[in-house]
């Protein structure tokens, strides 16, 4: 019973949260404009959180996601500034992030460096490159309108970014739950030694996972920069903690306590609605932080107590 409380409790908490804010600020919170605004704000976070979900599925951490997002945006905009076209700049930016992910994966899978350390160190390197390319400043020149339309405006009556959320999270969820690759990732996360002894290509899969996480982080960075129309070398860093908070909240909605894309989406929605709603009803920013942290702790505790049964 408590098992189910933990599982559906997360969803119920989300519904309650929406109900409370709707009651408190019916016109401001429960409006179409605010809903679209939320979708746009959360698109970037949900994609980075998806990258974190993949890496946590193999029981590792990738702390470079935020730095990779910054780097992709900076590379892209630096190339715009130098007169290159988006058709070249975007692939180069994504490729750089995938390469960073491969480096993370090699350090972890081949050399056995703890992923915490490897990805933090590599992320610092990526951040340094981003600072170097941008000279520490803001880049906003020569941005092709075709590029900014990736993250702005509406399509079929919904914000463009909403389609990105559906596409990326949909594919990731399909891969994790329906493919052999996804199955292997869950096996590696469950028992890496047993996975290797069962003949699974663990090294290759771990490297691939970090590479995908790098690519997704880069994509998130590009979409953020398209929406804002300018980039700074630190713009991706604030994504790291909320992304993992979302994954952790999401694990509370799974029967085995393992990460899932759907759970992560719920986690993103909860943290997003919380921040948005509290801002609308005028809660002090510092109180918002305390509430957000407390909610993550409560979610994980409920889960723990439920699992102990």
């Amino acid at each position, binding site marked *: 019973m408590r098992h189910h409380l933990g599982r559906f409790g997360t969803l119920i908490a989300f519904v309650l949260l929406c109900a409370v804010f709707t009651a408190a600020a019916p016109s401001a919170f429960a409006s179409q404009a605010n809903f679209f605004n939320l979708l746009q704000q959360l698109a970037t976070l949900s994609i980075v959180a998806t990258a974190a979900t993949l890496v946590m599925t193999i029981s590792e951490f990738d702390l470079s996601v935020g730095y990779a997002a910054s780097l992709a945006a900076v590379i892209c905009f630096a190339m715009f500034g130098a007169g290159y076209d988006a058709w070249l700049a975007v692939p180069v930016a994504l490729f750089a992030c995938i390469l960073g992910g491969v480096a993370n994966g090699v350090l972890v899978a081949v050399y056995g460096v703890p992923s915490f350390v490897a990805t933090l160190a590599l992320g610092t390197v990526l951040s340094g490159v981003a600072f170097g390319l941008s000279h520490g400043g803001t880049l906003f020149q020569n941005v092709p309108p075709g590029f900014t339309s990736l993250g702005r405006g509406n399509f079929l009556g919904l914000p463009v970014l909403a389609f990105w959320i559906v596409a990326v999270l949909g594919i990731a969820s399909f891969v994790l739950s329906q*493919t*052999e690759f996804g199955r292997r990732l869950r*096996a590696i996360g469950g*028992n890496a*030694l047993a996975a*290797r*002894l069962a003949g*699974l290509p663990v090294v290759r899969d771990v490297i691939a996972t970090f590479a995908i996480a790098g690519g997704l982080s880069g994509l998130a960075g590009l979409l953020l920069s398209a929406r804002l129309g300018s980039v700074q070398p630190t713009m991706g860093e604030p994504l790291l903690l909320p992304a993992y908070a979302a994954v952790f909240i999401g694990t509370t909605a799974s029967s*085995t306590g393992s990460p899932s894309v759907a759970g992560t989406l719920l986690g993103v929605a909860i943290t997003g609605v919380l921040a948005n709603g509290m801002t609308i009803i005028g809660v002090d920013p510092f109180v918002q932080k305390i509430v957000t942290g407390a909610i993550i702790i409560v979610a994980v505790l409920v889960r723990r107590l439920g699992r102990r049964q």
Partner: protein
Amino acid sequence: MPLSSAALALTGLVKQFGATRALNGASLSVAPGEILGLVGHNGAGKSTLIKIAAGAYTPDQGTISLDGAVVSFASPADAYAAGIRVIHQDAPLVPAFDSIDNCWLGRAYPRRMGMIDRRTMRRSIAVVAEEIAPGLPIDRPVAALSPAEKQFVRLLRAVADAGRVLILDEPTAALPAEDADRFFEALRRIRARGTAIVFVSHRLDEVASISDRVVVIRDGANVAELAGADIGVGRLIAEMGGDNGAAAAGSAMTAGAPVVLDIVGLTTPMLKSPASFSVRAGEIVALYGLLGSGRSSLLNAIWGEEKPTAGEMRLEDTPFHPRNAGEAVAAGISYVPADRHRTGLFAEFDLVFNKTLPLLSSYRRFAGLPLPDRKAERADFLAAAERVAMAFHGPGQSAGTLSGGNQQKLIFSRWANRHSRVMLLDEPTEGVDVMAKSAIKQIIRAIAADGNAVLVSTSDREEALELGDRVLVFRDGAIVADWGRHEVTPAGLSAAAQAKRAPAA
């Protein structure tokens, strides 16, 4: 020996687990300043006895007394407080701590003006170290110490923290010969301090040379107690006995079947002498030997987990050198590893997941697309589960909730619906109950009868005798005997497996 002078006496212990009577009146007593050997085959009841002495189990019948006074242990903490120290061969040490800190771990630190008094800590350990293991670098992190030195640290910790009765469980299994000698010197010095020592080991020559007295148990009861000149390896083997069960069901003649796996002069880091043998289709070859004798290393080499240092493997007359387990699977090798919790099972995932994982690509929904077909997986799981007679609630149950025997059957079921050229089984009945044991042996025979070549690595003599069409005996990294079913005897097996370690060079 009068019980009143015993530091620890266990008398008439009975312990029942379900349908199995693990102990059936076993007794043991050890005096201060005495080394008591405790021997018996796997399953004779040694570990249950140790666990009762350590307070981990409470006996159904029988008494525990310390210095003549009857006591009862409600928990391991009680036994610890009474001065009983059980040392397992790989009891954890904190790698980054030196010997001093490891010895003081969990104890109340001495204080001086509110600060931890390192000097007193060091002195107290140094005094004992000087006495039992002179030359041990007690200030060095234990991560930098050799396996033998780590073993000294474990002894040191037990003795330094007021241990009065030491129970050593296979303490020398991982030690090379010269280190074992040093270890025994340390034991003799500890004995000289008046500590009571129980030495539990499969290495009978070591038991014979170090023990003042030896208790032999079989089927949960004492069968002999030897002292002084009576203790000898031959006598111990005879007393351990247990010739029952050796008469195994005859298997099909495999002499004419084709050779599937041919091993020629293979060596690995643990298997130092070149090993050569071949396995025919439908044949069960048992690899018997003590822990660390090289048989697991051989399986690892065939499975691609360990790189051979020399030699050749041929699979159906083609050179075969897998670089990883994936290549071994693809070549038609199947493997049931030892220690399934660590190396086999995905405990939190469901049964179908656990069954289909190694051969997942054979369940594709559309040829060429890596999308598993859940229905096919489920149907296949149910068929395989029936073949291995697995008891379970439903395919969606998580693997961790199965009993030990059924978990093992689950691992077997992974390979149940394909023809394996070679099936590798490492300690296949380890940690399963008696019923499941015989069921698993039947499964193994059925696998062989289907024409798979089977290698069973085991430290269980009865299992080697019952299953093996042939038995290869491993000792200290070499194959020392290769016997057919009709040449092999229980006593012969034990004698061949007993290490006569080369004297220290």
